[in-house]
């Protein structure tokens, strides 16, 4: 929990421990960690009702398949905590995918292609930040517009077609493993550690919270608001680039439709985890909880052979329940 998150409210309770009634403390805890509790509940339930669920390979499967979304959500946390939105992540993902695939097929160099993805992502993200700050356009509209531009770029690069990559070693990043752990999962762990440190342990992180909490107050306090905004969008772009490199390597192909819907999935996961949609409150780990909560539902449906037509319904209800529970805490204040 960050310093900006609200403390549990005292109230009447039957038992008292350390001066605060236990009942309200439990309720406050449940509200604060609603997504985490749901994640644990679904994990335990699936472990009980499916003999296939609780295994190292399945846990690794869940972690691995959600890695691109998780990396995007980790960086997206900075954007939302700063009070902004990035609706261009899916389009940037498509661009880095097709550019990496194009470079790999034209040059035969795996690493040039895969390294180009984060560099390009960083540039596109910074451009988003500049559009928001220089043109003074709300991030929602600015990134909606840039997503159209980036999507068009992806189509122009490919002509709308698929680029299949057969370059030797290109799939290693997305499919390779060490001791049964996918490289992509290890990359996610590094990204998560760095992002947590950056948000919670640095001056920049505090500035992100300050800008999201009240940008005018932050400005008056000497925070360079525009610079913070450009940086969080650049981070988002960088993360999309890393995620795109993993994704294009995993599929050994790039196409302009790649990453379709990722932007809303990432935002949903971040909010579901408990980061405030209004900015100023949030944590990186919460976004991972949101990502894996959605991933567990998908995994559970597939291994239990539940009618896939029910998946969206169940996912929607769970998201609504978690968000409503968290919002109830704010409504009481």
């Amino acid at each position, binding site marked *: 929990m960050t310093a900006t998150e609200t403390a549990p409210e005292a109230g009447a309770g039957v038992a008292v421990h350390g001066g605060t009634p236990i009942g309200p403390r439990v309720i406050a805890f449940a509200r604060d960690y609603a997504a985490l509790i749901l994640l644990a509940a679904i994990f335990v339930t699936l472990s009980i009702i*499916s003999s*296939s*669920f609780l*295994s190292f*390979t*399945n846990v690794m*499967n869940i972690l691995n*398949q959600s890695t691109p979304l998780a990396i995007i959500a980790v960086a997206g946390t900075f954007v939302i905590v700063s009070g902004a939105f990035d609706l261009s992540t899916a389009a940037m993902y498509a661009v880095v995918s097709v550019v990496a695939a194009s470079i790999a097929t034209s040059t035969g160099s795996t690493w040039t292609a895969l390294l180009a993805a984060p560099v390009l992502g960083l540039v596109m993200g910074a451009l988003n930040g500049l559009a928001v700050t*220089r*043109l*003074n356009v709300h991030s929602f509209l600015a990134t909606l517009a840039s997503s159209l531009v980036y999507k068009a770029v992806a*189509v122009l690069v490919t*002509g*709308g*077609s*698929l680029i*299949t990559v057969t370059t030797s070693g290109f799939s290693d990043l997305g*499919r390779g493993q060490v001791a049964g752990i996918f490289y992509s999962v290890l990359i996610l762990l590094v990204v998560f550690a760095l992002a947590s440190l950056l948000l919670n342990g640095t001056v920049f992180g505090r500035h992100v919270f300050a800008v999201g909490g009240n940008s005018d107050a932050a400005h008056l306090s000497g925070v360079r608001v525009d610079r913070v905004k450009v940086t969080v969008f650049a981070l988002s772009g960088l993360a999309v680039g890393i995620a795109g490199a993993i*994704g294009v390597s*995993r*599929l*050994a*192909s790039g*196409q*302009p*439709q*790649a990453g*379709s819907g990722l932007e809303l999935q990432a935002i949903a996961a971040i909010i579901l985890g408990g980061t405030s949609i209004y900015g100023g409150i949030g944590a990186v780990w919460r976004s991972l909880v949101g990502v894996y909560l959605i991933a567990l539902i*998908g*995994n559970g*449906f*597939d*291994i*239990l*052979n539940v*009618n*896939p*037509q029910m*998946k969206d319904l169940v996912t929607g209800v769970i998201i609504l329940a978690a968000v409503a529970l968290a919002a109830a805490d704010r409504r009481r204040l």
Partner: protein
Amino acid sequence: MNRFRTRITATLALTTTTALLLTACGAADSASSSGGTRKVAVLAASSQNGYNQAVYKGVQQAAAASGKKITLKLLDGQFDSNTQLSQLQNVTSTGDYDGVVVVPNDGVGLAAAFPLSKKIPVATVLNPIGPDINKMEPQVDGVVTTVGVPPAAAAQKQAEGVVTYCARINPCKVVLLVGNLSTPLDVARRNAYKKVLGAHSNIEVVSTVEGQYDRDTSLKAISNVLQAHKDINVILSNADQEAAGAQIALQNAGIKPSSVYLTGAGGTKDAVAAVRSGAWKAAYINFPLSMGKAAMEQLIKAMDGGTPKAVVDSDGIGGVEPYATKETLARTPDFTGEWNG
């Protein structure tokens, strides 16, 4: 103040550049329909999709081969039923166009545009327009030709391939990897699969998952299914993109794709190569370029006042056995597929 000026300058520069770009694009696209030139609107389900681009290429080839003056206008349906419905209403109400080729996103919904404001011929590719998605004969006044095959019949043929493969396997565990079960088309396909497979007691459908016509989604879905069913015998999909994702999932799980009956549909270049190599056992091949060509040829007939074929069987126009296996493809070694996606 300087900052305000910078923003104004940047906004003006952006607006001017956009306006110039639009003018340039418009100039290139606004061919006149005067002087005996016919103008045809091509309504793609999505202009950014490889399948639709192949259809458009076929339309262009047929227009060029006709020796007539024909200008084409491609419209992007963005995989959205309402967008395409509006586009069809727009192009058939202005009087600017002499004919329409459409790849419907939703043939049932598109029927709402009929009867057309201006009576111009419409050729539909892949899906019929009207309430019955399995009826290829024109169902609404204005549609002059349908180039396609009933989706349930194609799905049935795919499932029959599975039955043949499973004949000596008991139980034969099948995973259905279908596109999107919120669309009538894919529900019809899923039902056709189940009807055929359900008639054989040795066949057990262990899982039905959605692939959303996407490699990554299919990779995830099949990776999940393999956690519960490592001993599957068949993955039956209605899309090559999905089968390609399933192939990666099998490889990640340490299963040789060639050890199961993996099949898709669409006829992408990757699918044809996969069947030729033996990685996939079969693929149902579409011929979008030939389909676009056939649709345009029939439309030209209609625009000339002739009688077009009401139905063109798209399975018979590619010069290749559509339900392809390694053996059937060996007969046409030069065929690589008409599109990729």
